[in-house]
């Protein structure tokens, strides 16, 4: 067992985690030549396109070290985005060491720090690595200083590599062997394995990716998932190369998979502990929690006939994504759809895109929102995930909304702008510290609702893309929140309702009306737009009906051009939803995003 090394790579997005992983696979002979075919570990197209890993895929390598011994290295890839905090933390719990990759040109970024804190919390041995030293803009000395400041290591311990050229990667492999501690854990003890990921395989059912903490589990044995209180039989067990390699058993210190035959990944929850039914371990691994959706949006098919297709598609996606939730929902405006829950905005976008691309659905997605805790007159707490369902204000005493701890790392010249946009969104600053002479890390408390609306885009724009951010849910806090209804031709459109702070309601009402006026195209009829709190209309405007444009006859019969124009308009209208007699484009449901504060 002392020849095992279990580690992961943590990095800010684009700092070269995947490229470095490729290089490790190559140098250890795990993958040769073409097999490697760009980023072996990221398998889904969409991830590749966006350059982010969502599903981690562990891989086992054999490395002949300079000391003449052969070591088994298990590389556990971690999801690369803030939305997947919990998954990252479970992956870290499966490791003894972490390679902290920092881009030699960009230096430390928000995710570098947050991932590092997580790794330190898990008592991992940190191997600091500066990547991309081949870049002309690389400044490894300055980045070394940042790293030394951040983790308190010695400058000489920072390994400099180029994942692209391979320079320095052998030194890194040696450092892994030398510095990452071998796993502890008694092979003879009762079996205990941590599930750090799971996928759904149409042939063998739900598959758990596990780290054996102690004991041994073999094919055919009955296992128990302690948190879920479910028993399964081990259909297949083994470890990973590029694909799964079946074995007889897995023992303490090893990383591998267990195929359970379960029909659904939701039964194989990340963070759960696996043990044997016959000889169970007494304790579950700590740190288990069920991935909880934080951001919600109503998904409606533009064509009502697609409702069943949407349901099928969501079910299929959920097979592989335990964090995705959905409940049927009916909107007076949009018809039948689903209120879907996501870990964060990116998660939402990915699901939306997959539904549209892989399942060829046309969707209207309502404005992302958060889950409110509403306290009624009797002190009962109601969870509201859909603003339209917020009870009238006279029936409630309190509304609580989720807050996050947000950290933003940015060159110091943007401090003013960052603070301004964050305060405008009801943030409060908690602290600010310099990472080096040029850059600061600012921490805020911020309502999640403000974050999901447009914060990230705004941050990118005011800092010209130089800032990075990360956030984590902290708690629900009471706020003076009210529901703003939007009415079209006198009818409240449930899908346009949203929740705002009372002090801002007026401004928002006016701005939304103005935006909607821009977004709703002129129609055959005049369209009246109003914003209201309860029965009180606080803003109104009209979209005038089309006028003139009486056309001369189709002279010489040039109807082709006209028809093509109409066909084009029609294609553009696939994303329009008919609400009463008014056609509302998808963008209108996102109008709030465009409001200037």
């Amino acid at each position, binding site marked *: 067992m002392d020849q095992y090394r279990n580690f992961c790579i943590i990095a800010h997005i684009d700092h070269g985690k995947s490229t470095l992983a490729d290089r490790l696979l190559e140098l250890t002979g795990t993958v040769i030549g073409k097999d490697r075919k760009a980023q072996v570990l990221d398998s889904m197209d969409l991830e590749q396109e966006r350059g982010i890993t969502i599903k981690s895929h562990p891989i086992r390598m054999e490395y002949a070290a300079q000391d003449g011994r052969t070591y088994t290295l298990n590389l556990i890839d971690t999801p690369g985005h803030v939305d997947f905090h919990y998954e990252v933390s479970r992956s870290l719990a499966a490791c003894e060491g972490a390679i902290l990759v920092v881009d030699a040109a960009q230096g430390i970024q928000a995710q570098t720090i947050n991932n590092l804190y997580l790794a330190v919390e898990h008592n991992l041995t940190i191997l600091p690595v500066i990547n991309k030293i081949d870049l002309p803009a690389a400044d490894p000395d300055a980045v070394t200083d940042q790293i030394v400041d951040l983790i308190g290591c010695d400058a000489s311990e920072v390994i400099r590599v180029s994942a692209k050229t391979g320079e320095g990667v052998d030194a890194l492999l040696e450092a892994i062997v030398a510095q990452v501690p071998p796993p502890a854990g008694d092979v003879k003890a009762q079996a205990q394995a941590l599930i750090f990921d799971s996928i759904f395989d149409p042939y063998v059912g739900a598959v758990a990716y596990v780290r054996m903490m102690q004991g041994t589990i073999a094919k055919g044995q009955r296992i128990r998932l302690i948190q879920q209180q479910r028993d399964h039989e081990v259909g297949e067990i083994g470890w990973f190369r590029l694909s799964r390699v079946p074995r007889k058993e897995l023992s303490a210190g090893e990383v591998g998979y267990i195929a359970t035959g379960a029909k659904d990944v939701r039964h194989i929850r990340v963070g759960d502990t696996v043990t044997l039914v016959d000889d169970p371990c007494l304790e579950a691994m700590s740190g288990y929690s069920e991935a909880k959706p934080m951001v919600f949006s109503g998904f409606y098919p533009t064509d009502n*006939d697609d409702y*069943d*297709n949407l349901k099928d598609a969501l079910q299929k996606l959920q097979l592989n994504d335990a964090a995705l939730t959905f409940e049927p929902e009916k909107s007076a405006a949009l018809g039948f759809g689903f209120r879907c829950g996501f870990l964060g905005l990116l998660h939402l976008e990915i699901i939306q895109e997959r539904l549209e691309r892989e399942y060829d659905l046309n969707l209207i997605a309502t404005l992302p929102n958060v889950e409110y805790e509403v306290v009624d007159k009797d002190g009962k707490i109601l969870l509201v995930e859909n603003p339209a369902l917020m009870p009238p204000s006279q029936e409630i005493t309190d509304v609580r909304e989720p807050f996050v701890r947000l950290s933003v790392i940015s060159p110091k010249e943007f401090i003013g702008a960052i603070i301004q946009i964050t305060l405008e969104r009801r943030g409060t600053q908690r602290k600010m510290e310099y990472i080096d002479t040029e850059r600061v890390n600012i921490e805020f408390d911020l309502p999640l609702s403000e974050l999901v609306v447009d914060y990230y885009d705004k941050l990118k724009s005011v800092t010209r893309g130089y800032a990075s951010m990360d956030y984590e849910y902290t708690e629900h806090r009471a706020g003076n929140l009210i529901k703003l209804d939007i009415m079209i031709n006198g009818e409240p459109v449930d899908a346009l309702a949203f929740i705002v702070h009372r002090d801002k309601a007026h401004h928002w009402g006016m701005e939304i009306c103005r935006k909607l006026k821009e977004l709703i195209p*002129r*129609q*055959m*009829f005049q369209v009246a737009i109003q914003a209201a709190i309860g029965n009180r209309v606080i803003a109104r405007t009209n979209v005038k*009906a*089309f*006028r*003139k*444009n*009486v*056309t*001369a*006859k*189709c*002279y*010489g*019969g*040039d*109807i*082709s051009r*006209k*028809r093509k124009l*109409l*066909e084009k*308009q*029609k294609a553009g*209208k696939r994303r*329009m939803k*008919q609400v*009463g*007699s008014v*056609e509302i484009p998808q963008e209108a449901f996102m109008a709030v995003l465009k409001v200037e504060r």
Partner: protein
Amino acid sequence: MTAPGMQPTPPSRPARGGGVYVHVPFCASICSYCHFARTDHHDAELRRRTVEATLAELDLRRDQSSVLRAGLRPVDTLYIGGGTPSILEAELFRDLLDGLRGRLNLADDAEVTAEANPESFDEDTAITWSQAGVNRVSLGVQSLRDGTLDLLGRAADAATTRAALERACAHFDRVSADWILAPGVTPEALAAEFAEARALGVGHISFYILEWHPGTALTRAAAEGRIAPDPDERVEAVYLAALSALNALGYEQYEVSNACLPGQESRHNSAYWRRRPYLGLGPGAHGFWGRRRHANHAATDRYLAAIDAGRLPEASWELLDGAAGRLEAAILALRTCEGVDLDRLAVSEEALAAGCAEELWVLDRHRLRLTTRGFLRIDAIESWLSSHVIVPERCARVDTSGEGRLPCRDSKQHHPNGTTRA
């Protein structure tokens, strides 16, 4: 001068056969608003070559169509349009008509229309046309006031235009005149001009709201602030005034921009709106024959080069599928006072009712007919309606759900011909 609307020869009836449109792309000068296929660079030789090429084009088309060759589909309507057909020399015009006749199975009672411009519609032309078999003349009047004619960049002044109108009515039983509702035109002036036309015996009036086409002199003038387009409200008022003036004079509207005395409808244009087949010949002409629409090269030199090389002079063509056909049929029918058969549309009851309440249309004998208000918004209505036309594609969608859902949203598709089920 014949009494207005007294001699309905030939009898007006819906076209059964096909139509033929011939485009003569030559003009004396270019009007400020015009974006048609036309040129003012031409001489006698070019005109003759073009007419001969047009006949050669007909030969090419006959070679490719057994229906045409065998004269299986009689030609009910012939329309010589432009540009300015009246610019053609007498002999050339005769050669054109004789050439067409010789190659087409022209029905005895065919409607034969030629378009004239006032500056070139002299006594000789009128006589030539009449002898050549033209039985309907469409005169581009546009206005009977010098100020407006100036603004429109017309070659003829008001006096010349009036004289041409009189001459047309003196020689022909069926006369149509085009008006443009141009900026600055007042309802009163328009009513007076229509009354003049009525008194002369004009049986058919087209009244077009000015369209601002990019690249025209008029649009440039507006962009540079030299003239001011009328605001929507005014345009609307003038259109409404035109309609009520026409009504008062006994003209009945039958299409968004066309009105006539009883029996004087343009059979040729009505066939367009009913999506009947027609051949298009000459530079810039469009045609629709079989399921095929085509557009000829608009540039005369390219047109001639193709004909010389023995090729069809088409700049583009397309074969229409059922969906495109349905869409065309619906938007064409929408322009007419017959309206669209409701069986062709998948519109919610709610939206149908809203349109009635807003007085955009009426529902009448299972048809949706635009009101005057609706005609003023026809672009918007077309664009809205176009996503609600029942198309075969939608109906053919395969039911993959296995739940026996109706593959089509509306079972009305089974009556594609829209038999009224009132």
